[in-house]
Structures are given as C-alpha cells and as structure tokens.
C-alpha cells in the first residue's frame, strides 16, 4: 500500500501532530486523559444516581470508562483524519507523496492518545479488582479491527471533505447519533432484542462490546448472543477499507488542484 520510505514521513508527521496538539498547555498531554475522565465522571453520576441503569452491571465504572474512551478514540480519529488533507493543503500543493500518508499519520496521532488512555483504564481496572485472563489478549485483535475500521471510514471522509465541506457538519451530527445508537452508556440488554441485533451489526458496537467482554469477563452483552451476525461487522470493516482505499486513491490525484 505504501512504499517503505514513506513510513518515516508517517512517523514524523504523527509525532509532530501529537506535539503540537498539547503544546503551550501546562498539563500537556495529561489533558488527553483528563478530558475523557471528566466526561466519564459526569456520565457515571448520571447513569448510576439519576437513571440507575448501571447498577445492574458488574464493574460498571470500568465498563463505562472503556466505552467512553473507545468511542472518544473513534470520534477523535475520524474527525482529525477527515481534516487531514484539507489542513495540509499547503504541503499537498507543493510536494508529491502518496496522500494516504496524511490520513494514516493523523490516525496514528489518535492511536497514541488511545494507548495512553488505556493505560489509565488498566490501572483503574486493577484497583477495581478486575480479573484479567488470557482471553483479555483478544483486545489486541479487536483494537486492530477498530483501527482498520477507522482508516476505512477516514478514507471516505478525508476524500469527500476536500470536495464538500458539509461533510464536516454531517459527521459531527452523525457522531452524536452514533454515541446513543451504540451501547456506550447503557447496557445492550435494556433495548428490545430485535433492536439489539440491528445495533450489533455496527462494527462500532461490536468492537466496544467485545472489548468489554474480553476484559471484564462476562458475556451478557457480547456479540456471541448474535452469533449469526457475528461475521457481518467484520465484513463491513473489510469492505469499507478496500472500497475506501480505491475511492481515496482515485480522488487523490486531484487533491492538489481542489484543496
């Protein structure tokens, strides 16, 4: 997909973006931890004290935090990737390199943030006496699937955003819908079974739920309930990646003129 010598460029751009993101703030990248933690705090109070939804779930704080952080990764990565071509217009008009480099490097910046956040989740999980098993290592596979999914979607977003700036607003609204259409704050079992089946077709729901299952060790809400569909999200991820790649590549030749 990308020639060897462009890995340097991806790395350098990702590191630069990460540096700049938290530059000139006293706490630096700690903000990337504080933000989801604060959001988590708000949601925790709302859903345990006000709606009392979470009380039925074991390890609800970790359950919620993992969901918030994974969804946050999704929202952050797709948003910055969508902007990656347009915000580097100057570079694109003056230098030739495969434009995919920009999409990949911007998602990698988000991956760095995610990994830092997951360390916090891990520490808190230890305090909450979560029992880690060998099964928890499936998390790595799931995160890989998540990353592939994000890259596939980002190809579409970044390419379309060059032509139609509306995509930015649409995506903002869409993400709000996704947040509630995905069992991030609520347990899946509170929605009707038929609805649950549809929800679990979404790779976003599948990945978040499966991550919780392999880490927190209970299966009440995992996709195994919906095994007949189990392969559907993965197929969707693969299709998005391949089609996204070809569409991006086709549109990329005109980026320099249109950006």
């Amino acid at each position: 997909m990308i020639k060897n010598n462009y890995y340097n460029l991806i790395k350098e751009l990702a590191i630069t973006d990460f540096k700049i993101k938290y530059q000139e703030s006293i706490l630096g990248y700690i903000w990337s931890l504080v933000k989801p933690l604060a959001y988590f705090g708000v949601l925790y109070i709302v859903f345990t004290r006000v709606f009392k939804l979470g009380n039925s779930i074991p390890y609800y704080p970790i359950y919620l935090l993992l969901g918030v952080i994974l969804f946050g990764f999704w929202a952050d990565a797709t948003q910055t990737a969508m902007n990656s071509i347009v915000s580097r217009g100057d570079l694109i008009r003056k230098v030739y390199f495969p434009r995919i480099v920009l999409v990949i490097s911007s998602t990698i910046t988000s991956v760095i943030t995610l990994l830092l956040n997951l360390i916090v989740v891990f520490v808190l999980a230890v305090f909450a006496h979560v029992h880690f098993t060998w099964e928890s290592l499936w998390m790595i596979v799931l995160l890989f699937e998540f990353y592939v999914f994000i890259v596939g979607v980002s190809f579409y977003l970044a390419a379309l955003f060059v032509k139609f700036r509306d995509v930015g607003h649409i995506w903002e609204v869409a993400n709000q819908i996704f947040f509630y259409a995905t069992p991030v704050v609520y347990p899946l079992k509170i929605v009707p079974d038929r609805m649950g089946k549809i929800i679990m077709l979404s790779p976003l729901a599948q990945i978040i739920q499966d991550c919780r299952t392999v880490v927190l060790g209970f299966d009440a809400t995992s996709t195994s309930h919906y095994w007949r569909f189990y392969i559907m999200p993965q197929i969707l991820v693969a299709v998005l990646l391949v089609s996204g790649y070809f569409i991006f590549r086709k549109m990329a030749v005109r980026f320099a003129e249109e950006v």
Partner: protein
Amino acid sequence: MEKDVAIQVEGLYKDFKIPHEKHNSLKSATLNLFKRKRYSLHKAAEDINFEVKSGEFFGIIGKNGCGKSTLLKMLAGIYVPDAGKITISGRLSPFLELGVGFNPDLTARDNIYLNGTILGLSRKEIDEKIDEIIAFSELEEFVDQKLKNFSSGMQVRLAFSVAIQAHADILLIDEVLAVGDAAFQKKCFDVFRDLKKQGKTIVFVSHGMDSIEQFCDRVMLIDNAKIADIGDPKRVIYSYNTLGLQQKASPKKEEKSDSRWGNKKIEVENFSLYDDKGNSSRIFDAGSTINGSFSLKVRNAKTKQLAAAVEITVALYDVRNNLTLTDSRRLKPEDFEQKINFSIDMPKLQENKFYFSVVVRNAKSNEVYDERSKAYEIYLRNKMTNPALFASKSFWYPKVDILGMLRIRNEENIIRDTLDHLSQFVDKIIVFDDASTDKTLDIVYNHPSVIDVIENKTWKKNRVEEETANRQALLNLAQKFSPEWIFYADADERFEGDIKQFLNSGEAKNVDAIRISLFDAYMTEKDKKPFKKGDKLLNFRKYFGLERRDILMIWRNKPEVTFEGLDQREPRVDGKIITKFYCQHYGKSLSEKHWEETCDYYAKNFPEHYSVKWEARKGKAIHEKSDFETPLYIWEKVRKNGLQIHPATEIGKGIK
C-alpha cells in the same frame, strides 16, 4: 528513452475547469445537479513536448499564468496531466519550494527533522547531517527557538540548508531565488554551481532573466500554455522580452492603454513606428533611428482654432533606469490635416524594454486633451553586454580614465586573449571593427571590458586612406569618454610593464605621450606550432628580431591630437614624449597559414612599395634570421640589446 535523457515529456495536455459558482457544499451541488454546469476552461498545457538531458540546467520562463508552474507541478507528480506522458529517469526531488511543511510552533531543530523527512531523508540521515545543516544556516544560537520567532530571512536560510541535503538526481526549483538578501542569494548561486558540477539535472522556473541567463544551458519559453521557443538562453530570453511585440508591429489595432485620460477633444490616433528601412516594427537596434508617426482627430471644428496653444509631447520611458526623455512642440495648423512625424536616434543603451507616451494638452490652460501614458511598448536590441552609455537625465558617456582602443578585422582566434590582456592596462576598451566576417564581433560584444563598438560594415578598397579615417573615427568616439589617457593597441601586440600604475602615478604628470619598444616575434623550424583559441599570446614564441621600433601607443587625451596623412598608425602629438615599456609583436608569427594570409592581404590591398615586399615574403613563414637579416634572440636578450629603427628621424643613433 535514451540513457542521457533525464526528463521526457510527450504530448502533454492539462485543462483547469474554473466553475463560475463553486460547489463547495453538498447543497449547491445537489441543487445544481440537473442544471448545466457552467465553467470556463483554462488551458494550462497544450501539446507540450520536450526533453531535458541528464546534467542539464534547464530554465522555464514565461509570463504569469502561462502555465509554467503547472508544468513543474506535473513533472513533480503533484498534478496529473489530462493527456500525454512524462518519463523521468533518476530520483526526482519532491519539492518545488523551500520550507515546505515548516511549522511555526515547532523549534528550528524539530522543523529540520520534519522538513528533512518530507524531502525524503531518514531520521538517521538527519541525525548525521544536522550539525552541518545548522552550521550552513548560521543559526546555531537559535536552533532551539520556535520558528515563529524567526524572521523570514532566517526561515529561508534554514529551509535552504535542509533542502540542499536532499539527495536527488533531478531538482525542480520554482522561483527560490526571489527571497533572501543579497549575501544569501550568492550562497544559493554557489550551491547551484556545485550542483551543476556534480552533474545534477536542474529544472529552474524563474522570472529573473539574469539568473536564467547565467545558469541555464537551455531555456524554454511557455506562452499561452504552449512552447513558444526552446534553446539557447539568450535567444529565448529575447523571444520572451519581445513576446507580443512582433504582432503589434502592424498598426491595425489601436492599443489599449491602462493609463489613458484627458477630455478627448483632441485624440491621438494611428500611432505607428518604423525602423531605418521604413518597415513597421516594435523591435529596434541600439544606435538605429526610430521613426514614428501619429495623427490627431478633432471632435469639434472649433477646437482647431486653439492650435497655437496646443502642445504635443512625445516621451520615451526607460524601464531599467526609470527615466523619461521628452520632446515637445507647439501644434501647427496643418498637423490636423496630415500625419505628425517624429524621429529618435536610439542611443546604445542596454538591451531592454522602453515605452512611448504621447500627450496632447493646452499649454496655457493645462487642459489635457489626450494623454496616452506608456502606451506603446518597444524593445531595444543591443548586442553588447556592457554598453558604456547609460541614461541619466539625458544619455551620458561615463568618464573612463585610461581608455584602450583597438582596430580589428577577423581576429576570432586571438581577440579574447587580446581583450583580456589589454584589460590589465586600461579601464575600458572601445573597438573599431573593420567588417569582420567571422565570429570576432560576438566575442567583442560579450567581453566585460568592451563598452562601445564601431561597426564598419562596408569594406573599402583604398586601404591607406581608409585606415587613417578609421583610426580618426575611433579617436572621436574615445574623446566622448573624456579619458586622461588613450592606449591604442593592435590585436597582435602583447605588452610588458606596469603601464597602468605608471599612468596613475606622479611620474607621468609631465608626460604627454609614451613610445613603447616593439619587437617582432618569428616562427622558427623548432617553434612553429600554430596559435589556437584559448592559448595565451604573451611569450608564445621564443625568438624575436633585434630590430626595435618605438611606437607611440599611449598619449594624454587632448583635442588637438589627431590622425593625419596616409596610413598613419601614430597620431600627431606635441609635448614631452618618453620611451618606456616593451611590446611583443606577433603579426607574422601566429601560424604559417596566418602568415600566408597576411602576405596576400598586403599584396592585394596596398600600394606598390608594400605589395612587392609582401609578395616576396610568401612561403617564407619560417625564419632563421629576421626580415632585416640579423640573427634571432630570446626575449630577454632582445629587450636589452634592441637596435632602434623607428622613429625614422632617430635612425643611426640606435644602430651600432
């Protein structure tokens, strides 16, 4: 593709669609989905074919918006052509401009890494080179400061220092040199020379014709997305400068003037320009005459009564020097009926654009009827790289303290060496060319010391009279430069001594003229290698004749000094004349071939007492003794023991 071709471009086309309303949002795109899309086509490349050889410095020039930057972007792969093929062999530099990707919020050091990576360097390579990069940029103290605190000059320096580290065989450079101060530009040029020496292929887009001419081996001119000319830099730059002027020569269309104003009670019409031969033209040679004419149109017959108060002005604007020459006169009644003619002897200024303006106004009330300011562009052609004349309020000849004069004909082999040699003793040189038919004049026009040339184009038979007249013409021109000293040399003479220092010293104060002791060099059996282009003539031959001629070659400039009589090499000078310095004269010893030609020349063109003598010399280029039957000696001996045979009045005194 041949091996030595770095870039080959075949049948390249590129259009840009410029939408009248830009659909940058989905709404307008969907709403207009079924409407006919309205856009105009802008052609950026139309059937472009060329190749750049490996190791070539290739320039691309053209007016703004002609498509040259688009072409460069297509070469770099940033734009994709609509049709055609670009084949590149070798590693191409991916960047067109300096400092691409620079981020103001990062330190200079971080930016070096970022920018270096964009240019294709690995982190390891940058680690190795970073000290060198910082040293070259001369920004050691600032390297850990954020880039936003840098001046633009510092940023360019940093960017350039990184850019030269990029390893590429083919570099594409877009107008880099427009930035930076003079010292930095020099540094850039030095790097360019290095790159050129290393055999890198460079494609250079610029508006700076000076740097294009200085560096490029070949230049391509793009006009309206097509190749208008390609080849020798001088010629292509000339094509660039005269773009559009060729067509404008025909006065069918009235030109649009951006700065036309006035109440148009009287209008200027049919402005046209003609060269010496009466051909309509917009391109003129330095030193030629421009003839022009225009007519006046009057809207109201009453206006004609004003004639006496109306003043017409024709002005010529010099773009390079930002100067205007004007000529005004009062209108005559008949000017309304017939064409108004004017004529200008175009001075020998540096090759450049000029503009004519015409103003018709009322001299009393200052009412402007028609002012066409800088409305008519012309181009002045001058073959000389360093013409002496410069424009100040009028056209001036600069003062030259020691002026060299040369009279030459067909000297293409030795003339460059002659000019270089003479430049050591004089400040500037003027040349009389006697109808040369070889490349002599090209060399003369391009020599940095030559400031004016008289071209004698017709060859007259009576040489004896003619040559004296030619020398006088040269002297007349020399006097315009008000020199202190005039040094009149021939192309085949080489001098020894600190002539310039002497003339500038106090010793020369009472001296009015200097005779220089001249000896003839001879070819001998062992020393007959012919002189070739590039050789140095001073001390070229080993043996010289003892016969010494003290020839008056340097004199203090005074109006009464003139050339008189028949075939007089020396002018008539009164006052204190001293004999000093030495001269090697190679007239008969450049090569055997030259010897025969010289014999023929004198035998054919000169009166009997000359021609008989030279006829007899044919076939005798190789000497054992001098023409005066004395043995030949090496230079040092000859210089000490010379036998004076000239001036004739002193004959006897010198010969022992």
